[in-house]
């Protein structure tokens, strides 16, 4: 029997708190799960710094990847006798679903921002490079790793396949919303996924939803909106993210200045110089990063040491609402005052915006801008969701954005009450 068709002698199941069970029957999927690159995802948290806000949010990209695989498996099960669906694409979809986050690094959003990297490039490199994953995929057929890479890169010729993994209502989002809700313990994020899966229909180049399933989709959109503001953009999580980003900036800056680290940051050197190899990239997981942070707490450089202590011991920055338009002059004054107070404003006076976040909520957009969610009407016509749903229209029409100013309030409070600088800073910040 060809490797691509090989089945395990009996079905394997993973217990899963979100989907109850994740079912594996294909030998290829089982082998992929066993690779070093996939197992590495156990050491990358799905929600990065959110565990400092929601103590349960310790789940990993490994959990999520299995979840996405399971959802796609169930969708395909529903699609198998429907028009527009080619059952030959099944294994490709399952592999792409399982491996879609393979290139994520530790705290990847901050890392990518500071070191100008893109985890998508590393996903491609793992799939196509000299890796265990590539060896398994290559056994399926020559060119199969490239096919999987194309689906994940969203450049595969069959757009229906792509849309299962990546679209406005895809398996990726459906898993992380429910999983993140479960592990953070919030009550948002729940929706009737079974219902959505039942009313999904494959079209030539996209997945659509029967109009009768609109209310289930509304629930999904609501949960996406609430999770965005209540979990992903939580101001305390953002504070941790700000500090993390500043630690990486500081370490890089010190390295470039020739600073003598007590512990040579071996794992970071290629990141500092800008071109980590795949091997170096894969060697850096969250345990390694946290080890360095722990060590850097004792560094001579006061900024690096302070920021690491804040992150490790959760002494985060405080925040206030900030309007960069009306408060521009105040910000410039604060910048000078912080310098005068001995607090480097590049590290201790930070504006964080909602656009700094790697999550979004649903917007129908303009024609040809981005493919929206389409409802399939009884007359077989497609209509964009917000045109039929008042709820979705009202959420997506609301342009909500947010900016906050993060500061080390404890350091300001430590200053003498007789200090004019302190007095003026406090006046600007708190009126």
């Amino acid at each position: 029997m060809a490797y691509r068709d090989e089945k395990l002698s009996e079905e394997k199941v993973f217990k899963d708190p979100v989907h109850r069970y994740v079912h594996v029957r294909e030998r290829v999927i089982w082998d992929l799960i066993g690779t070093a690159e996939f197992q590495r995802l156990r050491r990358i948290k799905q929600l990065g710094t959110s565990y400092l806000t929601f103590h349960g949010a310790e789940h990993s990209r490994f959990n999520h990847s299995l979840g996405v695989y399971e959802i796609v498996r169930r969708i395909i099960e529903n699609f198998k006798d429907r028009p527009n669906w080619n059952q030959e694409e099944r294994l490709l979809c399952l592999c792409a679903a399982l491996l879609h986050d393979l290139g994520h690094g530790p705290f990847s959003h901050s890392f990518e921002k500071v070191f100008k990297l893109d985890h998508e490039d590393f996903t491609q490199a793992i799939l196509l490079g000299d890796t265990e994953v590539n060896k398994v995929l290559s056994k399926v057929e020559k060119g199969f790793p490239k096919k999987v890479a194309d689906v994940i890169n969203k450049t595969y010729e069959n757009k229906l396949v792509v849309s299962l993994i990546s679209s406005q209502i895809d398996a990726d989002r459906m898993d992380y919303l429910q999983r993140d809700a479960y592990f953070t313990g919030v009550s948002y994020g729940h929706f009737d996924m079974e219902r959505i899966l039942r009313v999904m229909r494959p079209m030539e180049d996209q997945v659509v939803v029967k109009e009768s399933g609109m209310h289930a989709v509304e629930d999904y959109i609501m949960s996406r909106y609430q999770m965005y503001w209540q979990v992903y953009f939580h101001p305390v999580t953002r504070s941790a993210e700000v500090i993390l980003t500043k630690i990486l900036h500081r370490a890089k800056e010190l390295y470039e200045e020739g600073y003598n680290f007590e512990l040579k940051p071996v794992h970071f050197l290629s990141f500092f110089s800008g071109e980590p190899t795949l091997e170096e990239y894969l060697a850096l997981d969250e345990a390694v990063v946290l080890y360095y942070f722990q060590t850097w707490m004792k560094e001579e450089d006061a900024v690096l040491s302070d920021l690491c202590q804040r992150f490790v011991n959760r002494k985060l920055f405080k925040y206030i609402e900030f309007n960069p338009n009306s408060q521009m002059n105040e910000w410039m004054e604060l910048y000078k005052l912080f310098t005068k107070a001995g607090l480097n404003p590049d590290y201790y006076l930070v504006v964080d915006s909602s656009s700094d976040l790697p999550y979004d909520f649903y917007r129908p957009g303009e024609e040809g801008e981005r493919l929206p969610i389409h409802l399939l009407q009884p007359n077989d016509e497609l209509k964009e969701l917000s045109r039929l749903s008042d709820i979705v229209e009202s959420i997506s029409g609301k342009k909500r954005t947010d900016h906050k100013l993060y500061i080390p309030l404890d350091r300001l409070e430590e200053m003498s009450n007789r200090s004019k600088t302190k007095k003026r800073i406090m006046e600007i910040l708190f009126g």
Partner: protein
Amino acid sequence: MLENHAKLMQFFSSTDEIVGRKKLQKMIYILKKCEIPFEERYQFHFYGPYSEELTLRVEEMCNLGFISETKEEKKNYYQYRYQLTDSGRNFLTHYEMDLPPLNVHIEEMNGRSSRFLELVSTMLFFEHLPKEEIAEKVFTVKSAQNYTQEDIDEGWKFIEHLRSIH
């Protein structure tokens, strides 16, 4: 603070207006590929390269009053028109930008259809491939747009021209 927003405002300050979000998306991508240091991250989407970060930043700049957005109803869809406001211009005075002049690039792109810019940005997305493979890839991933080899040739000429502007 908001350096990436400021770069985008610099872009808007180099033209009277930008009509259409799709056009805006493709223009910033093409400029990035012409070595203009915009930092918005792009992924390939149904209609070619698209940046969620750009969408969010534009939304933020609208909410802050730095750019104005006018929504216009078209036959089956909405279209959006963007202009830098006086507040945006004032905000920019606080920044020393290291962007080269963009007005000629923008003028050239504004004169082209969003369909053509979709083609050019898609070609640039696959720029790492050999030229003949790029054409093949465009025909595959953009089959619905029915681009021809002439369109592709025109696209290469356009890219070369844009990159020769200093």
